[in-house]
């Protein structure tokens, strides 16, 4: 098997004084969805932030496309082909929907990108608006005026506009109505079909189990399970104790 797109190797991350990630390793092969499940406060968001360089790990290494990300600032990591759909969406409130979507394509964001990078360039403004017709209708509205669901679409669309190899998604279903959660599920599958990998952090057990190729369960900063979703659904103790889900789905 070739080298995975993303390889997290034994990272230890602190948030202020608290020791959040206590030696975590995982791989994300290209074009797959890897989900991290776990209760609140177990280090899921910290894992995403560690990979994106926003809260760099104190020990261990994150290797992306064969290169260590140690010491590299978030913008350089993003330019290497990683995009984030952050928790709480973090839409730029005073920018229009169009400006939000075009931000990753600004010259400042592409400064170090070379043409010979061989990067997928599937997503552009037209394709994103095709995928999210709700956004097309509100293209000139300020991001702050959108509903929660629309903001989530915008956050995903903004990430895709960078044509990343890996999308980090932190709780994309948070606060969404069931119908919209289904749409998020479809979007993730469609993103994978276009060849992007996803590292997904979720509290929505059913959603993560339905889209993921591989699942990790995190508890108190360590993984207590890793394997395919089918295997997890047979681990009654882990489901019950670490996820608060009884029995299989």
């Amino acid at each position, binding site marked *: 098997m070739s080298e995975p797109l993303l390889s997290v190797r034994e990272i230890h991350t602190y948030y202020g004084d608290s020791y959040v990630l206590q030696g975590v390793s995982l791989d994300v092969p290209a074009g797959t969805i890897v989900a991290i499940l776990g209760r609140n406060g177990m280090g899921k968001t910290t894992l995403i932030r560690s990979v994106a360089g926003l809260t760099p790990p104190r020990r261990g290494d994150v290797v992306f496309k064969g290169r260590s990300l140690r010491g590299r600032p*978030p*913008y350089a990591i*993003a330019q290497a082909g990683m995009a984030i759909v952050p928790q709480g969406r973090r839409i730029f409130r*005073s920018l229009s929907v169009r400006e939000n979507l*075009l*931000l*990753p394509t*600004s*010259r400042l964001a592409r400064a170090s990108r070379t043409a010979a990078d061989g990067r997928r360039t599937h997503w552009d403004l037209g394709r994103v608006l095709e995928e999210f017709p709700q956004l097309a209708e509100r293209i000139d509205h300020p991001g702050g005026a959108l509903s929660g669901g629309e903001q989530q679409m915008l956050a995903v669309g903004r990430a895709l506009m960078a044509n990343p190899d890996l999308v980090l998604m932190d709780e994309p279903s948070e606060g969404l109505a069931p119908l919209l959660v289904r749409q998020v599920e479809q979007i993730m599958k469609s993103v994978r079909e276009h060849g992007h990998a996803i590292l997904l952090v979720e509290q929505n057990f059913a959603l993560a189990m339905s889209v993921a190729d591989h699942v990790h369960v995190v508890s108190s900063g360590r993984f207590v399970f890793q394997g395919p979703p089918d295997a997890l659904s047979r681990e009654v103790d882990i489901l019950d104790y670490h996820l608060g889900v009884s029995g299989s789905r």
Partner: protein
Amino acid sequence: MTSSAILQAINGTSLAALLFLLASGFTLTFGLMRVVNMAHGAYYLLGGYIGLTIAERTGSFALAIVGGGAAVVALGYLIDRFLIRHTGENHLAQVLLTVGVAFVIGDVSLAIWGGDSLKVPTPVFLRGAMELPGGLVYPRYRFVLILFGVCVGAALWLLYRKTQIGAVVRAGVDDREQVSATGINVDRLFVLVSALASFLAGMAGVVGGAFLTLYPGADWEILVVALVVVIVGGLGSLGGAMLGALIVGLLDAYGRWLLPEFSYFVLFGPMAVLLLVRPRGIFGRES
């Protein structure tokens, strides 16, 4: 009475144009990087003095404006890069540091240009008075200054609201961390915005030095008034800097005319009341 009122309105508007030049840069650097740079008044004075020297040597007012602005850009970059950067997000450290920098700049300027009031020479076509409809007579220079302020304001507004780099700056004011996670080097963006702010401050010194004159202490006087503009308008808001400059300029002009012994109160009284009602200023937002 009416004619005086009109003249004071023009006085106030021309001061507003000058204040806007200084306040717009201050408010954008703060909005983007949460950097409080109290040396902006010193940038104003130094830019003015350098412009004065250039104008005296070359006879060109335009060259003085560009040169005064450019010199402050260079100095401002060094101060950002080697001093302010090390303060992180510590506002108290930034204030103390930049106040110190301002004192140093002020003293060096005193050593070079002396303690007298100096006036930046203006070209002949900007001198003298012009007659307004209704028989009012007004200095031509201050009229042109209003036009200049409007043009700079319009250019800044277009840059900020209508260009992609403006969108990146606005996004940075909204959520700096998310901008960097989008692949944008916010530090480099800040260098650009900071250079623009320095240029505006230095240019303001040349433009202001041609009618308010330059003297030791002018840096602090203008800084205090520009801070009122920024606070009234709302930190980080370009529109706020425009509206704030107009309000403060007019208050100052009418205050000096109607209540000369209370002119500072006329400036700070309304600011205090406004802050009680809107602690973040007119266009300030929750952060």
